[in-house]
């Protein structure tokens, strides 16, 4: 998709506490919410600039989510056994809420 529309290969995600995560567009697209933001028909800032601000997600959580996207992208069509994706118990609830919001 990135190639066809001439968009950049990466998108920037910014957490509520100001950390920026630059991730592959393809990986971020694994989230239904991010996909809608980036590929909506209207000219939203998110889709034109490729930068998304998450005001409710802290950096630790967003990092976890980004890791998960890459984990998923890597193992999506894998034929070998998938390693377990570790989530720290203390972040599990917050990650759940973020994942719920991001439709991941």
């Amino acid at each position, binding site marked *: 998709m990135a190639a066809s529309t001439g968009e950049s290969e990466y998108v920037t995600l910014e957490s509520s506490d100001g950390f920026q995560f630059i991730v592959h567009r393809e990986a971020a697209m694994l989230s239904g919410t991010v996909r809608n933001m980036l590929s909506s028909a209207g000219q939203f800032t998110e889709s034109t600039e490729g930068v998304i601000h998450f005001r409710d997600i802290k950096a630790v959580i967003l990092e976890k989510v980004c890791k*998960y996207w890459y984990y998923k992208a890597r193992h*999506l069509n*894998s034929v070998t056994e998938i390693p377990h994706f570790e989530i720290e118990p203390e972040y599990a609830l917050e*990650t759940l809420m973020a*994942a719920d919001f991001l439709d991941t």
Partner: protein
Amino acid sequence: MSRRNRSGNSTTFVNNVRGPTSALTSFLNERGIRRANPAPRPATPPPAVEDESSQGDLEEEEETSTAASSSTPPSRSTRTARLTRGRTLPTPTPTSRTTTTRSESESSSDDDDDDEEEEERLIPIAVTVRSTRSVRTRAAIASTSSSKATASSSKAAASSSKAVASSSKAAGPSKKRRKKDDSDDSEDEEFHDITGYVSRSKFSHKGRMPQGSNRIEFCSRCRARFTIKAGTSPAVDEDDGGLLCPTCAGEESAPNVTPKPKPAKRARRKQQKADIESQVPTLQDLCIQKIASCIEDVEAFGDISEISMDKICKIISRNRSLNTDTVHLFLDTRHTDLSLYDCTDITADGLQNIAKFCPNLRSLKLKFCGRINDTVMNYYAEHLTQLSSLSLIGPILITEAIYIKLFKTVGERLERFELKHSARFSLNALKALCEHCPNLTHLRLGDLNLMNDDWIEPITGLTKLVSLRLRNPERERMTTESLVKLIQTVGSGLVELELKGFVSVEDPVLLEAIRPSCVRLQRLNILGCEEFTTEAVETLFKDWSTNGGLTYLNLENCVMLGDAALEAITAHSGATLEDLNIKGLDELTKESLLTLARCENLGSLDASWCRAMDDEVLEKLVEAAPKLAKVIVWGDHRLTECCPSRKGMKVVGREGDYIDLRFM
């Protein structure tokens, strides 16, 4: 294997094979279990491997084929002629079958037609035993094999394989004990010939055999099951002529490698497991699992969605971690719906807290709530002032008086009521329910020990019913007449009707009650209503123009239903059906199963133990139904590993798969 223990003797058998029999062989013979129909014979040239067979084997092989051709008993000659004629038709003989390993399990007939088959296709085949088949089929095999043996002997002579030899060796072993069986068998044959009727135990799959579909065989080396795709030839073991699975065939090419059965099998399993697990779980599910695993340390959930909370509740219920302490996590004054899936460990006080902490509940569902008692129920009745839906599974302590009080208090508010597994819910309680709660739209009563025919009459008064589920009444205590009257009265409003386990009710329920009354019906469940006949179901669905079509239909274990029923169903509701359960309808043949392809909107299908189900049926269905997400096929041994599927579609219970408990 035991094929080597060849010893001469004198008894002649169905297939002219002599030799001692193993215990298994005699068992199989006694039960009339024989090998499947011979596979269609592709005119492929012999694989190169076969030329390597030794001279000694060749001799043996020739010996057998001569024997087979010369010594066919005269009594079977007519059939031989008929079958030979039949074979000239272009229709290929069905192929798929279940096989056993090349062990002592083979019966003499197996060996014989294996010989035959191998000569023709020049591919050695592991001896096969089908689980069910008719004597007739067996006879067919025997006779065709003998006729073929002569016909093809010239071709076979040069290239007959070791496998042939080995099977001829085995042809020797199976005689001593079978003299008596033999006569029985021939009687059976005559009987079948005359009547053409097939009883269950000797059910013929001839009619529902798949054509040109894949076959399942067992590797002669590692014993693993593997599938031979239609029209392809599997690799052949050079030593004993058995078939090789792709894994072992791969090893074959590496010289001097001793086969190690176990690792090969494990590798295959691993591969399969990986195939299934390549679906990456969502982050939400991962988090929920994590939370559930350390539920004891969670202090509060905070602001998570009700869906997530319900998921967590389900998981920790399954882990049996839901107890008086953890239940607090799910209680909140804002909640209007609450479902607790395992209340076993929640004390009466804990259950009472539900009403204290969630006073605004509209819907409450408690599963396995054995500890709930009269005090708690009374408290619910008084404090849950919004309650309109109540579901109790297993409230064994609540007494009749409290039920009556509850219904009086809740009165017209109650719209949904479900009660299962209670021995104390009585006719008086039911009368109170029907009297005080006229607005009931959903009523579900099941596994109540006292439920009998008298219960039907009060329910007749609930005219607003949209969904009625009655399950497992007292055996033989429910009459067809009262049920007909009930459905005629309330049927016009019903969208969902479940009559599960009404083993004694008969056809009039379908014909006089459901057909004329249930015009809005979308979901019908008649699981286990064994008395319903094919004709009745056919008549119900034939030209049932007053009903727009069902979306859900469960016919599980309505064992009498046959082809005509399913065809009528797919003709009537094919376009609307989303969920169909035809589990255990063993009478269905492939012909009617193919009409499933009319169900374009099918999302879920349970076709377990419909033994005629095969790759072709499923393939047609997968093509026709784009929404199909889950197919359950336990016991459908004709489905092979290569049965059609697509991404996101679950095929549960395929014989070739290992058991994955996540699907249970």
